[in-house]
């Protein structure tokens, strides 16, 4: 009946058809259920002290699960840089991750990856056995092989030994690698991360002659120019940058004039979505633009910009107005010259010391990952390598294919891979060892600002045979466990014993474990002076008339390492709203010029390599450019590949981020990716409201009601969501999924519109598709005072409680789904299948939250279990009323920008009550007068260059 997939602004009759799941190379439902069985294992773990094996009871706490909850402070790494987390451990098992408020890279917030780590921990498809040639071997055999290698290598001074890791900032890991290199002088260490920002490193070397790290302090920034994103997107510093940006914005809102975020980028990003002014530039136009802005700022350049960009003077003026309170940041994947230009502009603005500071790199040995991997490949090709250790990296999947890494590794006499999964590299190597999950192992890590965290196990090891990377290196060094302390812990202690004085060691050790941060380890400022001749001059223009391929991390799977995680696979990507797969993103105008409809299959050819995948027009995308999200389409993942297409297969070694000369052909086929969003149009003003700074929305006067108002003498729970702060990062969605045992339903079911997320983040485009304004709106249950769902339920399965929660009584629900029909916000979810308990179905973790059986409706509860726990705690302390901030919902806790406020609206001093008194407060669909307890704070917009001076 219908052929056209979602296009926001098309006419009424061109609505999308339901995607045909069969057309997508996606795992079938069964496979997904198997893959998502991590949650099953997680549930089993949560209840595993119980002698019976009947799974989690539906309506009550599992037998044997203790109420006692303990929290372990530890860290999770992204790109080798730690973000502090607190892991909730119940009955001996890790069940939920929260951010560590004391950690500078978390400040209590989490991102999607941190939230989802708990699922990976319990994934039954994790590697469980040491393997040789793919066949399971006892762990002792692997150790013997390592000992044999050690002896063989010792005889020739380590010649032929290579270690390949991801980027390493961990002091202990770095120390042990150093010891290996000392013990085997002929050995070499390589680092490779497919998303490592080599340009940033090269740019720092260009500008300062050293790998200087820039640590921005956005809380003081009045103007931010982002060249190619890189402020609010996923990354090791995202949570901190987002929090600081939100804090500056909050201060700006109070002061009546907002700081401005100016973004020039090719692929729409979260940074671009929140930009006060966004310029759409082709990737090759970013450097000339940066040059033009720099010239306007008076930066001495080797060569002036070829042609002044029309917007450059205004952007420069905005930066100039902010003076030292301005900062220029270059995003991931920008060439070195752009990073160098950003450094020079910061110096010209006198920003160092105010909005940024310089420090040494937090990495143990900063190096350009691409060059490091190429050196390894060349050495292997030259036959110089006999022994290769791959620690927690998957280069066979992520390396540029022209390096021929799989073949080179297979030819080695000894190769050993240690990883969480038996991945592509694990299969290519002779030996594979299962690696411990960070929550099971001892270790340490450093944050982007250098702050160290001692990682401690937050659960008993779930995989017997698994080892930490540090232990494998120790085994290579021939070191064994001594004394009562386990080897992993001993290795970490050793590192820190060297750093601390002996007398205070135990006290500091304990303090570090409790706090989750090691005092005084943040990077110290270092002087950095612009080098003479830092400007390499303008880059040669790419051949005209060709397409550019942009490679980008997938906002969900990152570099592909998260591909096994069903929560992340099913998470609709913030801007594309695609789940369980990726697509070639391109500008609507380019798609139109090429005659491409969404879902049309295209064959991309780049330097002789080809890849067929669906095209997906993306509003706000730069023309003549195709963005390829990395990390999908992995052949060996436990989810049987997930959906999507492996863009690494096209990625050239010398142009890992932007490659020109892409050829695009229509194949004539159609492969509709799974889109969770079929918006065709927005009645913008009503749904997403925007005010000028200081402007107030007209108050909404509630109309008459047939039923008398219900008194809430005690607490009255409510929520306020600040749309001005929300960056659309999805952390709240995964946090809600983890907290509330929300099942994964798989690609087929998502394609049918049956995703179960209780909280969704809506993405709206407003304006022309070339460069629309993007708005995010998290939509949980509104907990309407006059809840329309309640009166239509024939069996009273959804009713109000005494504190104003719209509760859902699962055992009473018979599944008429009438409530969903009458919910104007469409936040109710139905268990079409036995997602929670069926056969090999999805099981979930939090023992405080009941599972839902087939045939019942479920929805956001405002984390009623947390309210209950807080109330119990208050009663135990002899208090009748809860204090503000005592109950934090999972979504609010995860939010990096603290956009979600929750509390008692009866308490006039509570944060949420104060927020609701703000002039920006409005109810979504307020005209229906259902009086939602969840309200929104309008976005604030001003002229992008700030208020008229």
């Amino acid at each position, binding site marked *: 009946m219908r052929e056209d997939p979602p296009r926001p602004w098309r006419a009424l009759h061109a609505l*999308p058809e339901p995607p045909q799941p069969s057309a997508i190379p996606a795992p079938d439902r069964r496979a997904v259920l198997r893959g998502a069985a991590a949650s099953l294992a997680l549930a089993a773990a949560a209840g595993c002290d119980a002698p019976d094996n009947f799974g989690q009871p539906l309506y009550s706490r599992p037998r044997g699960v203790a109420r006692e909850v303990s929290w372990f402070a530890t860290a999770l790494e992204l790109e080798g840089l730690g973000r502090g987390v607190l892991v909730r451990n119940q009955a001996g098992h890790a069940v939920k991750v929260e951010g560590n408020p004391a950690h500078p890279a978390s400040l209590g917030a989490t991102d999607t990856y941190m939230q989802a780590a708990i699922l990976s921990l319990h994934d039954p498809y994790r590697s469980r056995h040491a393997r040789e040639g793919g066949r399971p071997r006892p762990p002792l055999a692997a150790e013997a092989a390592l000992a044999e290698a050690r002896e063989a290598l010792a005889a020739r001074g380590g010649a032929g030994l290579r270690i390949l890791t991801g980027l390493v900032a961990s002091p202990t890991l770095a120390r042990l690698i150093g010891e290996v290199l000392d013990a085997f002088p002929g050995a070499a260490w390589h680092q490779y991360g497919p998303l490592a920002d080599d340009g940033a490193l090269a740019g720092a070397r260009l500008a300062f002659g050293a790998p200087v790290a820039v640590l921005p302090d956005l809380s003081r920034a009045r103007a931010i120019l982002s060249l190619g994103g890189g402020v609010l997107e996923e990354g090791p510093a995202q949570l901190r940058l987002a929090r600081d940006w939100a804090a500056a914005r909050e201060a700006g809102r109070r002061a009546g004039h907002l700081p401005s975020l100016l973004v020039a980028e090719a692929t729409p990003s979260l940074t671009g979505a929140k930009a006060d002014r966004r310029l759409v530039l082709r990737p090759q136009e970013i450097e000339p633009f940066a040059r033009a802005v720099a010239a306007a700022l008076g930066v001495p350049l080797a060569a002036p910009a070829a042609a002044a960009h029309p917007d450059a003077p205004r952007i420069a003026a905005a930066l100039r107005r902010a003076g030292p309170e301005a900062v220029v940041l270059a995003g991931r994947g920008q060439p070195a010259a752009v990073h160098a230009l950003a450094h020079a502009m910061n110096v010209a603005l006198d920003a160092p010391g105010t909005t940024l500071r310089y420090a040494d790199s937090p990495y143990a040995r900063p190096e350009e990952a691409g060059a490091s991997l190429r050196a390894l490949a060349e050495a292997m090709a030259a036959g110089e390598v006999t022994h290769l250790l791959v620690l927690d990296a998957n280069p066979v999947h992520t390396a540029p294919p022209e390096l021929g890494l799989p073949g080179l590794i297979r030819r080695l006499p000894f190769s050993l891979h240690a990883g969480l999964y038996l991945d592509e590299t694990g299969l290519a190597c002779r030996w594979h060892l299962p690696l411990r999950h960070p929550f099971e192992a001892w270790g340490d890590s450093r944050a982007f600002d250098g702050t160290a965290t001692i990682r401690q196990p937050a659960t008993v090891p779930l995989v017997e045979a698994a080892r930490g990377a540090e232990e494998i290196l120790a085994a290579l060094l021939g070191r064994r466990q001594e004394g009562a302390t386990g080897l992993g812990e001993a290795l970490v202690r050793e590192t820190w014993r060297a750093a601390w004085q002996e007398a205070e060691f135990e006290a500091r050790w304990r303090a570090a474990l409790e706090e989750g941060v090691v005092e005084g380890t943040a990077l110290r400022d270092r002087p950095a002076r612009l080098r003479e001749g830092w400007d390499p001059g303008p880059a040669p223009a790419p051949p005209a008339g060709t397409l550019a391929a942009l490679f980008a991390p997938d906002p969900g799977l990152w570099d592909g390492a998260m591909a096994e995680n069903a929560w992340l696979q099913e998470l609709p990507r913030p801007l594309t709203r695609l789940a369980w797969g990726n697509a070639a993103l391109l500008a609507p105008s380019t798609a139109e010029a090429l005659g491409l409809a969404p879902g049309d299959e295209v064959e991309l050819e780049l330097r002789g390599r080809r890849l067929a995948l669906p095209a997906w027009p993306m509003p706000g995308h730069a023309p003549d450019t195709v963005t390829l999200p990395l990390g999908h389409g992995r052949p060996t993942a436990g989810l049987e590949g997930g959906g999507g297409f492996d863009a690494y297969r096209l990625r050239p070694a010398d142009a890992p981020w932007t490659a020109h000369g892409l050829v695009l052909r229509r194949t004539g086929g159609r492969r509709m990716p799974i889109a969770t969003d079929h918006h065709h149009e927005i009645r913008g003003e009503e749904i997403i409201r925007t005010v000028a700074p200081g402007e107030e929305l007209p108050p909404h006067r509630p109309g008459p009601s047939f039923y008398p108002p219900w008194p809430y003498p005690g607490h009255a729970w409510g929520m306020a969501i600040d749309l001005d702060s929300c960056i659309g990062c999805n952390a709240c969605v995964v946090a809600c999924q983890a907290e509330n045992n929300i099942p994964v339903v798989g690609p087929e079911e998502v394609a049918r519109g049956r995703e179960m997320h209780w909280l969704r983040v809506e993405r709206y485009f407003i304006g022309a598709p070339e460069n629309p304004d993007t708005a995010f709106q998290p939509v949980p249950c509104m907990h309407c005072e006059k809840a329309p769902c309640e009166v239509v339920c024939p069996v009273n399965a959804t009713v109000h409680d005494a504190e104003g929660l719209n509760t859902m009584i699962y055992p009473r629900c018979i599944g008429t789904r009438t409530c969903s029909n009458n919910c104007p916000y469409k936040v109710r979810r139905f268990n079409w299948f036995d997602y929670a308990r069926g056969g090999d179905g999805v099981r979930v973790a939090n023992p405080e939250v009941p599972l839902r059986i087939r045939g019942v409706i479920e929805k956001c509860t405002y984390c009623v279990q947390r309210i209950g726990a807080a109330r119990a705690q208050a009663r135990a302390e002899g208090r009748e009323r809860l204090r503000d901030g005592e109950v934090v919902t999972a979504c609010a806790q995860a939010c990096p920008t603290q956009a979600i406020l929750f509390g008692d609206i009866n308490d006039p001093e509570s944060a949420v009550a104060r927020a609701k008194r703000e002039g920006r407060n409005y109810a979504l669909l307020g005209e229906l007068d259902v009086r939602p307890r969840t309200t929104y704070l309008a976005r604030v917009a001003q002229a992008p260059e700030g208020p008229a001076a």
Partner: protein
Amino acid sequence: MSGAQGGIDTRRIADVALAPRFGRGFLAALAAAALGVLLLCYAVVVLLVVGLGVWGTNVPFVWGFDLINYVWWIGIANAASLFAAVLVIRRHGLRTAVNRFAEAAALAAVLAAALYPILHLGRPWLFWWVFPYPATYEVWPQFRSALIWDFWGIMSHVVVTSLFWYVGLIPDLATLRDRARREWQRRVYGLFALGWRGSVQHWARHQAAYRLVAALVLPLLLAAQTIVALEFAVTLVPDWHQARLPVHVVGTGIPSGLGVVLVLAVLLRATLGLERYIDDADMDLLGRLFAASALACALIYAGEIVTALLENPRTREAFLSRAFGDYAPLYWGAAVLTTLLPQLLWWRRLRHIPLVTVPLGLGAAAGVWLDRFSLVAGGLVRDHLPRIGPLYAPTAAEWILLIGTLGLFVLALLLFARFVPVISMFETRHEESEREAP
């Protein structure tokens, strides 16, 4: 009792029910219907074991074939009962010919319809929770919910339709009892004839009861159909939230019911050789009624367009997207089949051509089905917030269930035709004798 009173012999009708064999055609039809019922059983078992996920429903399209077919079947049942009841109350001449099988069709349709509200539940085995039984927890149904009203509506519908059909059948059951050649037939018909002896007192009470039940049918049917419409109209969904919806559902249901009665009449005439009892004048009258109801339906459609355009913008948009959006073919298909095409029957000549009347009657039934589809699915395309999911499209499981309920409907009618008189014998005799008397 003699069937040969006056000029008409009703023995033929009784013989149909009492015949030992019915011929191959009947057996084939019976087998086909039984196959349909087997499919129904299969669909129900799959539904109960696997879950509602086998349907194409999702959020926001939480209702699909379940409600579409429920409303459709109820519409057929209502229109057929309504038609029969009007004939009985008005003592219309046509009643002798058609009201018995109209009642039977209504009953079969109610049975088919009643399956859906139970099967569409997430947990069908708990459907009885909508009944206000004294539960230990003292939880009562939500009496403000239209689904509770609907529960009472359909319960009353089943009871009254069955009573109407059965009360009308009693004298004829007695006739069959008296004519039965086999002992067991005599006993079975005798049991259901409730000791009918044809005394004047019996007749007087029977007539009173029959007309009383018929009179009950009228408001109840309107109420039942209205309540079904209220299930939609009391929600906040912009396209559903309209006061005109009950009129729409009742009014558009009539052509489909009449269409089905018309088709059945043609089939009975052709297959059982009952031309004499359902004569050309009856067919003529039925055809004109059918066309007139379609005309009424056209007025309802016109009213819908006018009111929708006068409504608030959100309702207007919702209606426009239903009429011109994704599900537009359903809307226009319904409009053509239920309002335009039946107008052909204003031509006297066409009213007597079965090849015209049968497709038109079936078309009207199909058209109302499309209308219900358009309402249930198309009405949700434009909600208060922009739609977030894919559209609704029925799956194989839903089609199988629909075919299964069709099989149930046909099977019930075939058994009816086999075991009870398809035409009211006593009414026919009565009419004949009235005609002879003066």
